[in-house]
């Protein structure tokens, strides 16, 4: 099942499928370790529609919901189908 990171409830885990859009924001996410295949856990969502606190690779990241809506995720137990790089 494919969802957006922004739709996850706090405490839920998921696996990054792809990052939509490009440019600096995408490069930033890449630098922070958000690449396809990485496991993420939403720790908490700030009140009033504020940013999300996410755990990945053993550290914490804060991201706005707008940015989270660019990250498509799949459930972890679902086998990540290895895709050819060109389609990402």
């Amino acid at each position, binding site marked *: 099942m494919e969802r957006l990171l922004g739709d996850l409830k706090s405490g839920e885990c998921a696996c990054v499928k792809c990052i939509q859009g490009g440019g600096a924001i995408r490069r*930033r996410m*890449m630098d*922070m370790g958000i690449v396809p295949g990485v496991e993420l856990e939403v720790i908490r969502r700030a009140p009033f529609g504020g940013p999300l606190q996410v755990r990945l690779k053993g550290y914490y990241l804060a*991201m706005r919901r707008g*940015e989270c809506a660019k990250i498509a995720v799949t459930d972890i137990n679902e086998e990540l189908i290895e895709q050819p*790089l060109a389609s990402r």
Partner: protein
Amino acid sequence: MKIALVGNPNVGKSTVFNVLTGSNQQVGNWAGKTVERKSGIIQRANQTIEMIDLPGTYSLTAYSQEEIITREYILRENPDVVMAMVDASNIERNLYLVLQILELAPRVVIGLNMMDLAVSSGLTIHTAELALALNVPVIEIVAAKGKGIEEFLDEAIRVGTLSQDPLPRKVPYPQALEQKVRAMEGLLSKNPWATRYPLRWLAIKRLERDPEIGQDWKASAPGISQSKDSCCDTGYGVSYELLKTTSLPGEELLETYEAEGWSKDHFEMAFADAKYQYISEILPKFRTTINPGKPTWTDSIDAWALSPIWGYPIMMAVLGLVFWGSFVASAPLGGAISQGMAWSAEVIVRLLQWGQAPEFIQSLIRDGIFAGVGAVLAFVPQIAIFFAFFSLMQDSGYLARAAFLGDRFMQLMGLHGKSFFSLVSGFGCNVPGIMATRTLEDPKDRLITMLINPLIPCVPRLGVMSAVVAAFFPGSRGSVVMLSLLMLSMFLVMVSALFMRRVVKQTERSAFVMELPLYHIPTLRNVLLPTWQKTYSFLKRAWTFILVASIVVWFLSSYPQGVPMQATWAGKMGGWLSFIGAPLGFDWRIMVSIVFGFAAKETTLSTLGILYGVAANASQSIAQAMTGAMTPLNAYTFLVVYMLYIPCLASVVTTYKESGSLGWTSFGVAYNLILSFIMGWIVFHGGQALGFQ
């Protein structure tokens, strides 16, 4: 020998740097940037070593101002050895940068810091295995306790004196990618320009279409500064000049790949992907986790500090403490400085009288130089204590949490979570508020935050305002009036932020993707050293401007000599300006006090006192005297204008120094003035139309 400290933000670079260089540091700016450049000279084993503390970065692809600096430094100045600092408790992401460094710089030593945190969160790192996997020396450190730092430096010196570059293990790329790298390497290997960097790195960057590949830069660096001032030299910026651009071979190959779907973005993604892939492959060799899922210190603190219910009250309490410390507890110190200045002015004037110096020199020294400079020096305790708290909050990791909580409100104004702290600080004093914008990565966010900060009334302004409010609006009406003024300021901050967004061109909205670091207990040295450096540089930069400005204000207000205030040049200026004041119902006296308020707004009451002929210096009696000459509506209009126009000279100077742009500073000043008068006009005429008097 040149050694550079490189690593992610918050891994302990500055801690190591401070321990190694001690007080032997030079803090300047990178040319044309407001990012601090810290370097220091140390002597070890008959070697003179220049150490550089580079800004924290997550990768060597340019993103923020700081990252560009780090990248440019390594590319253009070729440090002999790179000390790559790694946070052991967050090793997986940290290694991503290390892999990039290893491709670019041949001589690298890894410092595995925060070993204590790694242990307490149940991680075991087998250092020898890590060294073996990457084929790079690795040293364990606990920088906060001073452990392993000397060994780290010794190892760096050893690597720096090797006769041949060591060969770190290469990142294996997937077959399809590796082929393309090889093909590009083949084309580049014969090019003379290409010999200066490792071939593999160059090929990768060429595939990513990195614009800097092929460029020749000349560093017009004085290298080691000759300045006598050992502590905080502000000069010595290195600037680079583009000499020429060589076009490298491989353009056709790139076009072929492009046609096959391998664009620039695609290459970047593929290389990043492969690096992370490689890290997760080698990770099990050197990292074992015991007891995963056990909540760490950070988890337990965050459960409170970021909780939807308690997060905001805790943040208010922390900010309250910062304010109390910097603006209330520091007040006696500031007062003592003012008194000390007044006292030394008296002593010097006595001496001058004894030496029969002319009257005007005495007045210049007492009322011009000492009064003006003293008003600024009185800020120093505030600024120092504020920065101590600021370092404490930044190093401990709380500042990132405050940004997390405040981001939603900042987003409404199109700003970044980190702007929140700058704006809140403005309530205390706009000068540190403007300086606090340094933590913002995006230069445009930073500029906007800096320009709207003066709209927030600082403590001294609030003091004058409440005295005037108390005189004109006694009883409970007073608090309603005060509240309405504060709401107005908030509203204008918001509107102005949105307006500035349109004026300040921004190609891409800045992303809020921010690390929430683990909590650390900051070391005393890490708090005190930057506090001292920042305070010192504030003094040093401000004082020439303030001195000149104080003399100008004194001159205007005391010449021609022996005439009443109204007939001095400043008084005449007020008179000329009364055509601006008239539509707002201001008489010349109010205009004069507004003109004088430029130097420092807290002087406004005493100026009004002189103009209304009230000898007493109690603020209540001055305000009382005003009630005879003004209607409440006049007073309210005055309060609005007073609250919104430029806070003081010191804030203007700080804006100029921090933005580095005369144009934007003038824009900010003009914006403030125009906005305040327009708001005053609306209030005055709106009030009249509604029948208030």
